[in-house]
């Protein structure tokens, strides 16, 4: 049942040494004691747990990353709580029109009496939902395409990378405008929006994973697993992908931030989230004409939008530093 138990001790050692050498995480803690139970039972998973702790420790030592994480989860939790407990929902219409911020309406009301606080929080939640779906989708497609291209090389690689080039030579926004226009006719559902943004956001991950795979496939541990009779699929999924995981995770975080940018931009030009649903970009669009008179309609969505995106960039930057193997030997 265990996957490594049928290997001879020598083979086990071979595999252990190679997996701990190749990773981007060449950390002392990452190598479990030889022959430990963990190692035999979980193979690489044993390494990964030690690495996770190290990465987490380094991450919390970066102040910006921690602030980013707190703000992001703070906003997400606030948005969920608002959705559940706040007096008004984003669709409510009250009798107070164009009121500046007050206790009853912390972010004021708009020209038809909607509560801006409820709308902004719903918009935040909507943006986060879309961004997470995009990140999962883009990372999955990108990692798969990149892994296949880098592993098989040759004609497969060329064909896949030409397709990536195709998306790179046209401004992403232009592709999205065409797609959004066509999809919007079918459904104005936010999930569709997430799918089309995901469909154009995977190219960077693909290039990244491909480059990693091109060098990983020449490593001894891949050779070793092949000699042991592992299938291509198993080599890719169990041996190579875990070694490329660091950059993939960092990139997924950045994709979350960038997809919020893309979504809000599309919503701003009227091709994204459609009323009565709201997103931050849509709120900025609706508030822009009264930016100096009813400033609360414009300023609050703008600030939340920028802070939200900024917090995710900080998380991504912190993760990159924490996962960077070179950081280990340079100044602590």
């Amino acid at each position: 049942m265990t996957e490594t138990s049928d290997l001879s001790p020598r083979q086990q050692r071979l595999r252990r040494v190679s997996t701990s050498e190749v990773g981007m995480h060449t950390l002392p803690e990452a190598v479990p004691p030889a022959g430990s139970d963990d190692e035999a039972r979980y193979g690489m998973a044993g390494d990964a747990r030690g690495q996770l702790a190290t990465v987490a420790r380094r991450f919390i030592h970066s102040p910006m990353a921690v602030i980013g994480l707190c703000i992001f989860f703070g906003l997400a939790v606030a948005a969920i709580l608002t959705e559940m407990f706040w007096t008004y929902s984003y669709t409510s219409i009250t009798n107070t029109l164009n009121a500046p911020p007050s206790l009853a309406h912390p972010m004021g009301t708009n020209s038809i009496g909607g509560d801006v606080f409820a709308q902004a929080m719903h918009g935040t939640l909507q943006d986060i939902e879309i961004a997470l779906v995009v990140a999962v989708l883009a990372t999955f497609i990108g990692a798969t395409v990149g892994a296949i291209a880098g592993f098989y090389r040759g004609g497969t690689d060329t064909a896949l990378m030409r397709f990536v080039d195709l998306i790179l030579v046209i401004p992403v926004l232009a592709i999205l405008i065409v797609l959004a226009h066509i999809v919007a006719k079918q459904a104005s559902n936010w999930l569709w929006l997430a799918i089309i943004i995901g469909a154009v956001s995977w190219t960077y991950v693909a290039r990244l994973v491909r480059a990693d795979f091109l060098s990983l496939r020449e490593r001894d541990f891949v050779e070793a697993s092949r000699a042991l009779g592992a299938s291509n699929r198993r080599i890719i999924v169990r041996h190579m992908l875990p070694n490329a995981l660091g950059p993939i995770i960092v990139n997924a975080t950045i994709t979350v931030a960038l997809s919020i940018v893309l979504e809000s931009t599309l919503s701003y030009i009227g091709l994204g989230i459609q009323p009565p649903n709201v997103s931050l970009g849509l709120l900025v669009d609706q508030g822009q004409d009264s930016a100096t008179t009813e400033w609360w309609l414009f300023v609050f969505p703008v600030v939340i939008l920028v802070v939200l995106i900024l917090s995710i960039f900080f998380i991504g930057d912190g993760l990159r530093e924490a996962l960077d193997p070179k950081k280990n030997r340079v100044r602590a």
Partner: protein
Amino acid sequence: MLAYILRRLVISIFVLFLATILVFLLVAESGDPLALLRANPKIPHRVILARENLLHLNDPLYERYWIWFSHAIHGDFGNTVAGQAVRPQLVSHLLVTLRMVILATLISIVLALAVGVYAALRQGKVADHVATVTNFLFLAAPVFVVGLLLKEFVAIPINEHLNRIVFYTNGEQSPTLSGSFFSRLPDYAAHTALPTITLILVSYSSWAIYQRASILETLDSDHVRLARSKGISPRRVLMRHVFRNALIPVTTVIALDFAAILGGALITEIVFGWQGLGIWFLNGVNGLDINITLAYLLVTATFVILFNLLADIIYAFLDPRIRYD
């Protein structure tokens, strides 16, 4: 090197060809561009028939693509849904967009390199932190947010304060503009300033972050340490050994980002009401106008490809080890 560039060019053109087919199918399948015309009872039937003929709407898809393709390679991009020739419109809108894009790209590159180098050399000091936070702020702010903030909270207050218009916030030039080129120049400048600044701010930030990291990495490398220990003056080490090497990775990033600049220009045009390529394209897509959509795609993609080639050439100059063969 020439062979390499030619090969890249051929591949790019092939990719572009595929892109046009894809976009053609997407737009053609998404609806009837003459729906609005047909819904209007005042339009006589023969006008619609004539328009259908002009746009080849009744031909099979592959034939329509072939008609477009065979004309496009001769520089004829067909007619718009409204029945006018695409090319003159394309040229006039392109010129408007280029006014902002060329200037913005050049200034962004200079600014990014300056800020990146400065922050790296002041690593850990206040100036570095200020620069880094500012860079991240502009990286995080979407184009339309930067544009709107500049418009509402910088340009309009300045104009009101000085009681005259310093920055125009709408349009690429005054509608009644006439006279010689030099007499028109101040008007152009007052219209172009804000959109260009917007585009600069959103473009430079990621490059500056990258340039800073790149300089820091080069400063930490063995060859720089060697150069220093040989006793070469710090200034010379910086100019000859650090900058040159640190410029190599950032060149790629800038070249790859050029498509994003054109995308940013699209949003900037919408914010500032410029009759540029972006708005033209957006209206084209909204009107299911295949010829406008494809013309925009061809022009932007050509610019991106040329820019990437330029980066490859600069690359070879910066790093003599790079041989394209």
